[in-house]
């Protein structure tokens, strides 16, 4: 205990996902007394991901190096085959994406976050206990402790303030610390993706036979084209040990523009005839989940530090969408480990920002920042978003000539190569051309027609919410609606993954209020069904915080 009466640790890591776990593990390796604070009842209970974790050949750190036994104990199946399906109605054209998938990939496994992060938590606790720290769950860090305007520690709901020489914010996409420090914001929908996912029960033997894979093999399928109307994004299906992770990821601004209901887009994928053979007759959904995904091309912070605080993983916007392949957890691991190393080498330096500066430099020098936020994208962005260019391309593709051009065998070969080029896919402009038009035209011109029918009936939103586990903090809602008007907050009614128009059991609903003879539509909020994705923090006018430690939704799959 220091003279100021505060408890003190050399390092505090907020959040025990892969980024926090990597940071804490490396800090302990350096002999640093490290306290890890995790708000979930167990690590992983607040975490959702599509489900693939990569180990890149070029990365300075991979998770299995930091945590021996990781692949054996904490993951589901490796991805041994990788495909993308271009869908136009019932017509589907499939490309093998394995080349792109294997580019710079040492290995890639499907994971379920509750299992994975729960396993990591135990390892991290063992390691950090040895240097005088440990992992505490059910503790929510709610802000930064400052002294004379400088960050010196953290404040928590459940604990008295704690000071530290080094604070790692690995508290996820809705990092309250990053926002408290003024490093990140929730302003622009076009800086975010939103993903929703269903984990579906399938017998392990059925997985092997339906996907024609052996024991210890797994597949990844991606979907794009017109099955999501005009919403920019795509779908995925990954094989787990005894379940499938099936989900959709869309640009948040596109969801808002199209007034799309995320759960309906997921259902469009689940009920597409292409999936019927894989899902079988019995459909049992274990869990419905959602997550906001930062687009690192736009938001990965080039200097993710302030005073003694560094940001790691989603908190720093470190989520790379490499065309259809999304890489987040691997970068969080690298960043966490680098942050720990940066602190270790600058320990004892009087300048509180020494570790942060070193960390930013290591992100650059290791090539991590260039992967996350390629400079060529910053240059190309201005072109890619010029509507004139987009419209011209659209017009050509829609014409008979354009479609025919895409439909010839040479185009077919070129397209396969284009899809498998890491450079090209990372340069695809964020317009409907790449996501909808090209795949739909490809599917239409080159695709074979799927003749079987889907008899899948996904659960209703009400049933999905009913199946989730909540420990509601009664009388203490964690989100407050600042502006009830439809103009400011109406988008949340459809963009929120657990709300829908004409559904009274969700978080957000539009209600008509009659006052003094006039009628007005207002948005109201009930945070009980909240899955803590953060969508409404971006699309509506809210005061957004996480629930207290251990409260709120508890994912069992993640």
């Amino acid at each position, binding site marked *: 205990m220091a003279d100021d009466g505060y*408890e003190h*640790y050399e390092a505090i890591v907020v959040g025990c996902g892969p980024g926090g776990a990597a940071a804490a593990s490396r800090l302990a390796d350096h002999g640093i007394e490290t*306290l890890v604070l995790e708000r979930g009842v167990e690590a992983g209970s607040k975490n959702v991901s599509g489900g693939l974790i990569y180990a890149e050949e070029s990365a300075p750190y991979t998770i299995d190096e930091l945590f021996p036994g990781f692949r054996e104990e904490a993951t589901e199946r490796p991805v041994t085959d990788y495909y993308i399906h271009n869908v136009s109605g019932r017509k589907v054209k499939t490309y093998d994406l394995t080349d792109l998938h294997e580019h710079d990939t040492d290995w890639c496994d499907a994971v379920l976050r509750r299992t994975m992060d729960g396993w990591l938590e135990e390892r991290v606790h063992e390691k950090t206990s040895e240097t005088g*720290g440990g992992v*505490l769950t059910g*503790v929510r860090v709610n802000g930064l402790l400052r002294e004379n305007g400088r960050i010196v520690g953290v404040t928590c709901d459940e604990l*008295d303030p704690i000071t530290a020489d080094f604070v790692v914010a690995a508290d996820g996409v809705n990092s309250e610390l990053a926002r408290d420090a003024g490093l990140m914001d929730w302003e622009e929908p076009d800086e975010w993706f939103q993903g929703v996912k269903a984990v579906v029960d399938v017998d392990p033997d059925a997985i092997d036979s339906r996907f024609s894979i052996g024991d210890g093999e797994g597949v990844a399928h991606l979907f794009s084209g017109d099955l999501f109307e005009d919403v920019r994004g795509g779908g995925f299906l990954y094989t787990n040990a005894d379940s499938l992770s099936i989900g959709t990821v869309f640009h948040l601004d596109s969801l808002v523009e199209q007034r799309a209901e995320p759960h309906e887009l997921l259902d469009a994928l689940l009920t597409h005839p292409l999936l019927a053979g894989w899902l079988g007759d019995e459909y049992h959904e274990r869990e419905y989940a959602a997550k906001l995904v930062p687009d690192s091309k736009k938001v990965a912070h080039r200097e993710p530090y302030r005073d003694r605080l560094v940001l790691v993983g989603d908190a720093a916007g470190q989520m790379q969408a490499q065309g259809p392949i999304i890489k987040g957890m691997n970068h969080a691991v690298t960043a966490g480990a680098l942050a720990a190393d940066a602190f270790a080498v600058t320990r004892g330096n009087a300048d509180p920002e020494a570790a942060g500066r070193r960390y930013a430099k290591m992100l650059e020098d290791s090539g991590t920042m260039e992967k996350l936020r390629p400079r060529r994208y910053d240059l190309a962005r201005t072109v890619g978003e010029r509507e004139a260019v987009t419209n011209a391309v659209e017009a050509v593709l829609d014409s008979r000539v354009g479609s025919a051009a895409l439909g010839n065998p040479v185009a077919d070969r070129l397209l396969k190569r284009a899809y498998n080029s890491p450079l090209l896919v990372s340069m695809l402009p964020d317009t409907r051309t790449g996501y909808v038009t090209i795949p739909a035209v490809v599917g239409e011109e080159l695709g074979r027609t799927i003749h079987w029918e889907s008899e899948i009936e996904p659960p209703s939103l009400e049933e999905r919410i009913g199946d989730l586990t909540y420990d509601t903090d009664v009388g203490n809602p964690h989100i407050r609606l600042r502006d009830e008007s439809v103009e400011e907050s109406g988008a949340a009614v459809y963009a929120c993954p657990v709300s829908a128009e004409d559904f009274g059991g969700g978080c957000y609903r539009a209600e008509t209020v009659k006052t003094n003879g006039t009628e007005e539509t207002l948005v109201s909020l009930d945070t009980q069904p909240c899955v803590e994705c953060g969508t409404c923090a971006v699309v509506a006018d809210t005061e957004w915080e996480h629930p207290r430690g251990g409260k709120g939704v508890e994912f069992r799959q993640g």
Partner: protein
Amino acid sequence: MRSAVLTKGVPDFSEGAVSFDEDGHLERGKTPTVMNPNDAFALEAALQTKVRHGGHVSVMSMGPPGYESVLQEAMASVYADDLYLLSDRECAAADTWATAITLCSALEKYQEEVRKLDLVFAGFKTADGETGQTGPQTCWGLEWPIVTHAIALDVDPDERTLRAKRLVEGDVDEIETVEASLPCVVVTDPEFEPTYRKASHRLEHKRLRAETEARAESYDEHLTTWDHVDMNLDPDYIGLDGSPTIVSSVDPIPKAPSEREATMIEPDDRDGMERLLEEMQPFAAGD
């Protein structure tokens, strides 16, 4: 800090576990014995003291050999270091007075032969006797200060004092803060809540839990059983013979008369719901 926690095994009165005969008498044989629910708060208070200041917690109970499972439960929940069972046929059918004499003698033996105690914790009345007397009577025998209805506790090992918040019942519940010197008896209120606002305390709590899991598995290695000879007690002063309380008769409490008839309507029963709405109609206007 060295603490002892007094606990008792009681019939499990929870729904589904408890069994009554036709006359409304408890069927002891068919009802499982569990740790007195109120004692959990005493255990929590002892654990909080151990977590914050280190030391040793012993759990003590008077009862038949079957109480071992109760002590095991106590060990698992409070991460106790060892267990003491005061078990003797001569102790059977004791009232609160005879129980207090037995407990008091055991605590004195513990202090002479094992170690001096700083704190003795007891829960607020048992689920079967409901007297709330045994804790205070034991304290009277020890001639220590006592703090009852404690809802929060803070021990100062250097000053050898404790400060406690007490819930004082009245028309309006009031909370008073008291200070006592150690050694002291603390009777916890069911409103007692341990607080762990320091990360180091929570880490210690977690460490103790991991350490105790194995210990509770082999609890019998940490169990000491004393009979009346061990405690140097005269059989005339313990058990039924030592109990001045005379139960003259027991009157069953008649069941509350149910004057109103209840009709069950399932939520998807459309006609039933319509009838219900018709029934409610007159009251809607505020009649």
